[in-house]
C-alpha cells in the first residue's frame, strides 16, 4: 500500500510541476490542482497508513492508540482541501478576467512571437 500511495503522490506532483511550467493558464490551473491533490495525499500519509481503523477514540478509560488512525492529519487535510479549493476558485476568476482583458490565454497576457 505504501508503494502504491507514494507512486500516486509522485505521479500527481510530477505532472503538476510539469503543467505549472507550461505557458497556458488552463494548464497552470490544472497543474496547481494536481499539485494540491498530491500534497493533500502526502499530508494524509504523514499520519501513517491504517486500514479499517477509526480516527475517533471512545471516551474515558485506557484505549490502545495502535487500533486507531491518527485524527490530526485528517483534520489538517480537510482544512487544506477547503483552502486550496477556495484559492483555486479565486484564481479561476482572475484567469477569466485576464482572458477577457488581454484576449489571450497566455500567462504573460501576450503571445511570445508577437
Amino acid at each position: 500500500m505504501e508503494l502504491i500511495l507514494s507512486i500516486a503522490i509522485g505521479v500527481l506532483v510530477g505532472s503538476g510541476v510539469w503543467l505549472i511550467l507550461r505557458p497556458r493558464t488552463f494548464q497552470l490551473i490544472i497543474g496547481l490542482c494536481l499539485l494540491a491533490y498530491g500534497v493533500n495525499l502526502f499530508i494524509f500519509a504523514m499520519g501513517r497508513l491504517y486500514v479499517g481503523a477509526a480516527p475517533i477514540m471512545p471516551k474515558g478509560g485506557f484505549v490502545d492508540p495502535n487500533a486507531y488512525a491518527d485524527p490530526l492529519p485528517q483534520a489538517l487535510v480537510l482544512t487544506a482541501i477547503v483552502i486550496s479549493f477556495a484559492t483555486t476558485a479565486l484564481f479561476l476568476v482572475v484567469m477569466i478576467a485576464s482572458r477577457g482583458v488581454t484576449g489571450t490565454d497566455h500567462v504573460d497576457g501576450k503571445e511570445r512571437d508577437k
Partner: protein
Amino acid sequence: MMPEEIYVPTHLLVAPVLIPLVAGALMLFYHDRYRQLKLGLGTAALLALLVVSIEMISRVKGDGGTFVGTYLMGNWPVPVGIVLVLDRLSAMMVMLTTLLAIPALIYAAAGWQGKGQHFHSLFQFLLAGVNGAFLTGDLFNLFVFFEVMLAASYGLMLHGSGVERIRHGMHYIAINLAASLLFLLGAALVYGTAGTLNMADISRVVPLLEGPQRALFHAAACFLGLAFLIKAATWPLCFWLPGTYAAASPPAAATFAIMTKVGLYVILRLMVLTFGVDAGASAGFGAPVLILGGLATMAYGTFGILGATGFRPRAAMSR
C-alpha cells in the same frame, strides 16, 4: 521552557485578529456607496488596534525576564490545541503592522478606495491575517492565517483593475499558491517527524530526533524555508515581487510591504526555535544559506533601485 518566563493567559491576545475581522465583516453589510461609513469603521478599528498593540508592547516590556503571554484558543491543553503566543518580537510586529496600515488607509481615503469594490473589507481581512500570522504559536494555524492574508491580498492586488494589474496579479497568485503548497508539504513533514505542530513543542522535540528522522526533519525545514523565502522575496526567489508591487494600487502596495516581513518573521522565529543553540546536532542548520540569500537580496535591491526608471518600480525594489 525557562523557569523565569511567566505565562499569563490574557484575552487581549486575540484582539488584533478579532478587531479587523469583525470590522471587515461589518463593512460587508453596507453597499460600496457608503464609503465614508466604511472609512470611519476602518479608522476606528485601526485606532483600536493601535491601543491594543501599545498595551501589548507595554505588557511584554517587562522587567528583566522574558514575558511570554499565551492564549489558548478553544481552551484545549497546549500541545493539542491551537495557541496564540505573545512575546516582544510578535508585539513589535503587530505594532509595526498597525503603524503602517494607518497612513495607508488615510492615503486610500484620498481616492483609491473608490476605484473598486470592497477595498476596506479586504484591507481589514489582510490585517487580520497578518496579525494572526505574527501571534500564532502553531505551524498549521500559521498556514491558515497566511491563507487569510494571501486571499485578501489577491483582492487588494487586483483593486482598481486594469490590464497590467490583472497580468501581474495572475503571476502573483500562481506563485503564492505554489509556495503555499510547499508550506503544506513542510508542515506535514514536520508533523510526520516531530509528531507535533506546536512551535514550542517542536523546539523541545528537535534535539531528541535521531538518524533518518532528523534528516527528514531537515528536509521539512528546507520545504518551509523555501516557502517563506519565496514570500519574503529573497534573491533568487524574488523576481515576482518588483512587477507585482509596482502594478498594485499604491495603498495596497504600501500594505503589502508588511507581507514580505511576515515571511522573514516566520523564518526568524523558526530558525531560533528549532535550530538555535539548544538544538543539538541540528544547531545552525541552513544559516549560511540565509546569510548569503540576505546579502544577495540586499545587493539585488540596491542595484534594482539604482537601475529603476520610474518612481513606482523604484519603490517596489526598495522592499
